[in-house]
């Protein structure tokens, strides 16, 4: 298990930020999935001295496009893709109802835009490419792994992990209080316990902080909140003896 930071392609300052805060892996979001872009991404990450854990936010909408992304990813050596359904229309406005009036995001788990048959086609393509596909919802299609939000593990994470039908490819630390997103340290989910259960489950993929909350005077990318989350996760892993 290793901490990874979500970064945006083209924002190389975010790579430096990751490195300064002791992160060695990043998951990247890109707007375009052609070979030139993905190669550029891979090279920029590597030349910073970091490792590209995978790409995320890949839309599950058109089967042909997804097959092409899988082929391109394979060609440039990317072996992990986290898929999601893109949010259409206007984003819900975050509300200042968090601790200290922090902005909390709104939204729901995505659902697949593909039929079962189309999904199966994409999964086959990924298997042929020796590439892992992770699904961000709680019910991953058969054949895909999970991009798992840890607050879904509930009060008994060990049992819940053992009962999962799909492998966990990506873990996302997030916390909620009475269903509302909150800071990692304050919600209903015992994150150190969940991460300890992941360790016992021999999870060896990237651990990311989910959505950073909006803090006062922060940037659109939320550097302060990401720094807070990274510090928290680093400490939990150190305390659990995960190096």
């Amino acid at each position, binding site marked *: 298990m290793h901490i990874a930071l979500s970064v945006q392609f083209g924002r190389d300052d975010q790579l430096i930020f990751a490195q300064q805060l002791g992160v060695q892996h990043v998951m990247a979001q890109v707007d375009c999935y052609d070979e030139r872009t993905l190669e550029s991404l891979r090279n920029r990450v590597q030349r910073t001295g970091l490792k590209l854990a995978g790409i995320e936010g890949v839309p599950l909408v058109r089967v042909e496009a997804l097959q092409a992304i899988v082929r391109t990813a394979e060609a440039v050596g990317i072996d992990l893709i986290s898929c999601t359904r893109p949010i259409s229309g206007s984003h819900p406005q975050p509300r200042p109802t968090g601790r200290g009036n922090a902005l909390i995001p709104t939204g729901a788990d995505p659902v697949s835009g593909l039929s079962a048959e189309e999904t199966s086609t994409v999964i086959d393509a990924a298997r042929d490419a020796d590439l892992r596909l992770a699904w961000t919802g709680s019910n991953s299609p058969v054949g895909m792994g999970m991009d798992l939000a840890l607050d879904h593990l509930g009060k008994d994470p060990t049992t819940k992990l053992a009962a999962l039908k799909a492998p966990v490819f990506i873990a996302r630390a997030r916390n909620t209080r009475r269903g509302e997103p909150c800071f990692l340290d304050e919600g209903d989910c015992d994150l150190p316990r969940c991460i300890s259960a992941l360790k016992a489950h021999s999870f060896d993929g990237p651990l990311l902080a989910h959505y950073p909350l909006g803090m006062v005077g922060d940037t659109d990318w939320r550097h302060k909140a990401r720094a*807070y989350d990274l510090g928290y996760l680093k400490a939990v892993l150190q305390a659990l003896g995960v190096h």
Partner: protein
Amino acid sequence: MKIALQSSGDGEHMQFIHQLGLAHVVSGATPSANGILELDDLRRRKDFFAEHDLVWDVIENLPPLCYNDAMFGREGRDRQIDNVCESIRNMGEAGIGVLQYQWMLLGGLRTEYSPTGRGGARYPRFDMEIAERMPAACLDWLGKGPDPHPYPHLPDRDMVSEEVWSNLIYFLERVVPIAEEAGVKIAAHPDDAPVPSFMGVARILISWDGLQRAIDCVPSPNNGLGFCMGTIGTMVDMNVVKAIRHFGSQGKIFFAHFRNPRGQVPFFDEVFPDEGDIDMVEAVHAFNDVEYDGVIRIDHCPGVIGDNGHADRSFAFQVGYLKGLIQTLTGTEIA
């Protein structure tokens, strides 16, 4: 253990502190023209923080201008000590329980603040070789700070260790009884950097024995330490975890700074808390085992890309880190 940040009372920064989930702040205090921390000023400031749902627990530090003659043993020290005693009485009246002071006659010492760290982060550094070659350049007050400055000039004579000790003991013998009456704990911050002498002036709180002597020279439940993990960690051959257990089990840690250095005198860097020489996991265990229930303030930290003047990104990382350690190791909520 109560995690705190330093606050000047800036509104946006106080909101940031709330968002980090902290309820305690540490702040300095401005003396009046006659060198006293006045009761009305202290009450006003404490109330100000309370109106923002923050508890002001510690004054950090007693302004050196209030006692610089006492540190150097100069004429006028008795008047200054009387004023310090008055300030302590006022703190007791205002309900502020800890006063940190330092006995660094020439202040703090650093030689660099360069992008030598992880990912080019700026690490404050002390390098004795540079300090000896360009001593005035590493005095962190020279060319900045208040006017008039507590150290009006570079030293014009040597001061040996026993002279500096004598001055400290003279001060404590007069101040500690007042602190007992007022219910205020006075906490000595060690010499940073902890080198034996600088520019011919001895530095005394630079070792295990020095810290213990500061406690024992005027025995009192109100005489103890501002336990700066960073400074103590850079003392020669020091083990910080053992020191927490040793001084904490005596009940002598009145206040603590959370910081992790790499290296010890004569050369060290201030690095991120997860990568320094102190085993922070064991340090939190030690604080917990000695039942430390005072304030631990996140100390100065490396410079992170794009950060603001308050270094919010760097402090957010450190607060998250300490919270993550405490929650994982003790299973407790922190405020």
